[in-house]
């Protein structure tokens, strides 16, 4: 999917998460904060996409 985007031009989309959670469903993309180890209080963390099913996270 991403490869298709790249060929087609600029732009991106959230991961589809299709069949990324193993046998678990529904599998949906969510924002997950990534703690850069050491951050100032009140600073937000960078975020990445992960696939979520129940309370389990999977790589997209």
């Amino acid at each position, binding site marked *: 999917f991403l490869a298709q985007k790249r060929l087609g031009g*600029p732009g991106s989309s959230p991961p589809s998460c299709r069949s990324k959670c193993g046998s678990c469903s529904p599998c949906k993309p969510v924002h997950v904060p990534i703690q*850069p*180890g050491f951050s100032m209080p009140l600073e*937000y963390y*960078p975020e990445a996409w992960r696939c979520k099913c129940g309370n389990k996270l999977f790589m997209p």
Partner: protein
Amino acid sequence: VLCPIASSLNDEGKALMSIKESFSNVANVLLDWDDVHNADFCSWRGVFCDNISLSVVSLNLSNLILGGEISPAIGDLKNLQSIDLEGNKLTGQIPDEIGNCGSLVHLDLSDNLLYGDIPFSISKLKQLEFLNLKNNQLTGPIPSTLTQIPYLKILDLARNQLTGEIPRLIYWNEVLQYLGLRGNKLTGTLSSDMCQLTGLWYFDVRGNDLTGRIPDNIGNCTSFEILDISYNQITGEIPYNIGFLQVATLSLQGNKLTGKIPEVIGLMQALAVLDLSENELVGPIPSILGNLSYTGKLYLHGNKLTGPIPPELGNMSKLSYLQLNDNQLVGTIPAELGKLVQLFELNLANNYLEGPIPHNISSCTALNQFNVHGNRLNGSIPLGFRTLESLTYLNLSMNDFKGQIPIELGHIINLDTLDLTGNKFSGAIPASIGDLEHLLTLNLSSNELNGPLPAECGNLRSIQIMDLSFNSLCGNIPAELGQLQNIVSLILNNNKLQGEIPEQLTNCFSLANLNVSYNNLSGIIPPIRNFSRFSSDSFIGNPLLCGNWLGSICGPSLPK
């Protein structure tokens, strides 16, 4: 005479005893590292041995508040696969001998007080996959020989004092997944080679002294999920090519970026966080940013952006933070922002916005902070604001708002800051203000308020700052204000208050700043407790008030 203690341990045991010896503060935590009573070092705390060879394979002494230094003897533990000394108070240098631990896969020395250079010998660790030295006091350059570690996946050198350039060779690594360099003193430019990191998802050089431009081919870094080059001195324009990135977080804030926000960013729907704040960006906010329907945080504040706020931003249905403050935006606040039901913070302060606050904003029921300070907004406070039950911060100061302060404001029970300074609000202060029991700051200064100061203000039990100066308040200072046990500043100057200063105010023990000057107060200043520390500046301009300042009716007489 043979020493029986020494002979009971093999070389690895002796190395462990040397390691213990160079640590300090070991008394309690390494109690069982005792070659006299327990020569089986594989059973010692934090020591893990291979079942068959009985050789030490792992040393885990994290978060034990160990002091002292890392002994060079660590190099004698040749079968170590993992060292974790994270979260101690270790000082001194990283010993060169660590390069002799040829089987090391995992090396974590983060959160200590280590200084000196990163030893070149680390590049001898050909099995190393995880190297974390973050949050120490390491100096000198990033050794370019780190590139000779073939399987390195995680490299975290953040929060040190590393200098020099990021070695270009480091980018020619298809295995590296995580590059954390934030909070150092790295110089030089970002190389176009950085996109050779084809397996990298986390690129973080925030808070260094990098200069130059964003490489024109940045869009080739297609494996990146997080790109943080914020708080450097990056110049030039944001390249069009950035639109090919697949990142979830794009942090470019705190640089010296110029030119316009490229329209192509509006196609980057994978963005969860877009931060372009505190640069020198000009031109309008592209309305195509409204396409970013998965973005939760949009920060464009502190630039030189002009033109109106595009109504299309109301289509960013996942938005929780929108900060457009400190720009040169004109026009009105679009009613479409009312569609942002997840909006938590809206900051439009210090622009040239005009017109009223649209009633639709009351539909942003998740709103916690609303700041429009320093614009040219007019009209009155929408009554719908009473439904914003999550609101804790409401700042309408320095605008042209008028009308009464609605009684319903007292329903926004979670408010901790209410700032209406510098408008044309008129009428009386509603008694319902006293219902805001969590209020810390109440600033109604420089309006056209009249009527009495409501006694209910004495119910504001959390309040620390109350500024009602430069209005036309009349009547007495309510004795109930004496109940305010947390108040630090009580500023009532330049009103028409009369009567005596209630002696109950002397019960406000935390009161450090009092200003009741330029009113019509009379009687004597309570001569007790905290009132002795207030200078005459707190009281002047009350012709009938008796105090000991020059010119007061009962003060020292004026010199001839």
